[in-house]
């Protein structure tokens, strides 16, 4: 059973994500942290197979958290969840060490992203893949 740490400060959305993933059968949200600091605490308490991280968090943001996790737990894949549909954030997240960037709009996209990252792929929501930064 895949063990996931969810880092999300919006309680309603966090609750729905927990329901979504726990229903898959082969994965479970083992813990939820509402802040980056809380997530680091939970990571020091137990092992997880994957971390889902919201970009917008109070205090330390999700991208900085991913960077810290990437350094402290190099083998632990982090997947960013976000409402921000900007390639700028995608670029920053992947540079920080995230294995993927998923928009929160689509349940199928979230499941697909988790499964692909577990296979070793880097996953970005299809809506963001075609956008390029010019200049």
């Amino acid at each position, binding site marked *: 059973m895949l063990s996931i740490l969810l880092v999300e400060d919006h309680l309603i959305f966090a609750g729905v994500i927990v329901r979504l993933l726990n229903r898959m059968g082969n994965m479970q949200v083992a813990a939820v942290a509402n802040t980056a600091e809380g997530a680091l605490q939970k990571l020091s308490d137990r092992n997880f197979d994957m971390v889902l991280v919201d970009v917008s968090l109070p205090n330390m943001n999700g991208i900085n958290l991913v960077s810290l996790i990437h350094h402290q737990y190099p083998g632990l894949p982090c997947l960013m969840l976000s*409402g*921000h549909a900007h390639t700028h954030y995608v670029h920053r997240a992947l540079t920080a060490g995230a294995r993927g960037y998923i928009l929160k*709009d689509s*349940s199928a996209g979230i499941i697909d992203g988790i499964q692909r990252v577990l296979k070793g792929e880097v996953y970005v929501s299809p809506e963001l893949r075609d956008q390029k930064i010019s200049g």
Partner: protein
Amino acid sequence: MDNGTFLNLNDAYLKYYGLRAEDLIGHTSAELRLPLEPSVRPSLIARVRKEQGPVRNLEMETRLPSGETRTILASLQIVLLDDKEALMLTFIDITERITKEHDIRSAATSLNTAEQVERQRISRILHDDLQQNIFAVKLQLSFLTNMLPEAGGEAIRADLQQLDQWLTEAIATTRQLSIDLSPPILNEEGFMEALLWLASQTKIQYHLDVNVEWREGTQVNLDDEVRGIVLQSVRELLFNIVKHAGAQQARIKIEYTDSDVRIVVSDNGKGFDPKATHTPISHGLKKMRDRLFLVGCSLTIVSEVNQGSRITIEAPKADMMTD
């Protein structure tokens, strides 16, 4: 003229400095440190000689005998008195005007800042609260859809798909509104990253190619207030290009001097007459110029009909800002 000896003064001058004629006449400007600091005098005389005529509207500081510093607007010219060259100085005190201008500028800047803060607040509510709720509803809807039996649930499935579509549109609307009010990137990221984002957004939203040019490795250091208004202005200029210029390409170029940062926004569109008044472009640019002026920036417009446009914003670097 050469040694700065006071030859003559009017009553207004004596009253202004609270002195008597005998306190001044026959004494030198350097000795009394009036009306200006001695170090300033040689360059002023050189300038008057070079102009070969009156030099007007010089804003300078003078110190009263009490020690108080005042700001004056002065005119200088060389005159002949008894066949000898003398330097005639006339001035008005503009200290109150300068103070009031400063107060107006501060008030306008505060209003601008308050508006930006309020926009950021509403943008955050849209993103952090409303949008997250809509995401949750959308995901919850997907549960219900998946719970429907394969057969017999077609009508309900169709309704749920319609709901999903409406929610998708609602998300797109809140996203765009959040960006229009206060794009997070403009507040959270570096100046260059913010410009690159503006270029990217213009391309995505309006299909206008925008190239951003700057010297690699350079950090643009602007005060927060200046930065906010400059980025807002660049955004508006790009929107103007989309709306009015009919251009295929635009360019943002960053240039530097010792004291200023120069942001040049140009396009290859149909141009306009900068002297024309009462047009939407002229009104918008005038307001932009006023907002920039309030934070110590300037706006220069170069454009001709059918020749494209080149608009330059000059902003003082952060450590160059003075009150």
